[in-house]
């Protein structure tokens, strides 16, 4: 899928996007209280510590909710429909917005196990997507 918008990394998010290039789904884990967080943020919303480690997530999770986008007038996206937007609940706890791939829109269900896969957008960016995981796939 030739996406009209690709991510731009900033000083808060660069480690996440660098991780994607290596096929790793990196989450921030607070060095003080241990809470995982996503999307990237400069401080822990629980204890306000700025110290964190970037930890590779397992990449596994379940569909928390989803929508099948059937009509989208925004430039470039009109050619992409239908596509599945989904919120994944990761094994580590945080949620992640994504697209589901390698699955028919009609087959998507809340609670479905999924696993991360990385789509190359251009020479310098990879975008994490999710696909069905395990025997249900």
């Amino acid at each position, binding site marked *: 899928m030739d996406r009209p918008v690709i991510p731009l*990394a900033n000083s808060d998010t660069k480690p996440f996007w660098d991780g994607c290039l290596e096929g790793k789904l990196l989450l921030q884990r607070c060095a003080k209280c241990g809470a995982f967080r*996503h999307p990237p943020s400069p*401080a822990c919303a629980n204890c306000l510590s*700025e110290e964190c480690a970037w930890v590779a997530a397992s990449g596994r999770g379940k569909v928390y909710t989803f929508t*099948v986008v*059937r*009509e989208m007038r925004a430039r470039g*996206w009109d050619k992409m429909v239908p596509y599945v937007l989904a919120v994944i609940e990761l094994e580590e706890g945080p949620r992640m917005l994504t*697209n589901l791939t390698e699955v028919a829109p009609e087959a998507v269900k809340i609670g479905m196990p999924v696993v991360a896969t990385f789509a190359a957008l251009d020479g310098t960016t990879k*975008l994490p997507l999710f696909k069905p995981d395990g025997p249900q796939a």
Partner: protein
Amino acid sequence: MNGVSGKYAIVGVGESDVGRHLGRSGLALHLQAMTRALVDSGLEKSAIDGLITRPSHSSPQFNYSGVLAGRFGISPSYLNDTALSGASSAFMVMEAVAALEAGLCTAVICVNGDAHDAGPRRGGITNWIEDFEKPYGLIGAPESYALAARRHMHEFGTTSEQFGAVAVAFRKHAALNPNATFRTPITLADHQASRFIAEPFRQLDCCPITDGAGAVIITSAERARDLAKPPVYILGLGQGFTHSDLAYTPTMTTAAMRTSSQRAYAMAKLGPKDIDVAELYDCFTYVVILTLEDYGFCKKGEGGAFVENGRIELGGEIPVNTGGGLLSHGHASGTLLITEAAIQMRGAAGARQVADAETVIVSGQCAVNGINVSLIFGKHPN
């Protein structure tokens, strides 16, 4: 503000690192300054229930006070973005005193500042996490609200037909409103036959783009009594916050409407049972179902069944969006809900007047149910 002299004080001060090319985002510097001010004050973080800020000039964002509240880990009862350029910082202090004096919050943090080299940008006002949304095709409102609506259906068994009951009711009301955009009645079958935009939303679940505006003038109750039209008394005000980005909210099916309405009810010393009319922000049909639950008109999860059988129509248990709402009257960013509420309190709504209506609640919201404002108006000063 007569009588506030000496009544309020600054109790915490914090500065972020300051310098050239720090390589940190405006968000990072704001959080750093806030954390230092908090430590300086000795207050618990949870004691901060007001937040006034201004998005970094170099990185303008929608609903930035909500972004900052979420990243700071608080749920304020008062939050706002100012837009007064160089006067913003001073104005924040003035606004904080106004909010405190009004009893809308008890401890306000004001934060302002900028960072210029945080990374490349696309230009224009943005959503702070657009890099985690737009590449996936989450661009606008329908698909955002659709994610929340799907979750409501999953948890509570809410149906598309129940969404349809909302659309049908508001169109029925709009037919009685000469200033409404869409006045031709629709049926549940029309709703079910309309095409999918972002599942589970069909075309008739989505508020169309319309032109329009509304305005109200507010003065003291004393002065109001000498003017031409009957006063519409402001009885309750409340704001609530749960999230700036839906996907990451702790509970997708209970939203900012809950605390917002609880605060307004408390100020008005009224409860949902005392409300005669409701004018609820309805960018999508489903939002009305969620709001009716969080405003206490029915239990959590029962909003779908509640909107059926004419309960929200004129003559029903609680008439909702008597002018047609955003869906059929016009979008106007929700301001027509406020004008309609005032017209109902004056008893001047003609064919769509709710008989003997003395109280009305209005919902205004943004950030996919994450930021909500509740207003309660009355025919009498209470």
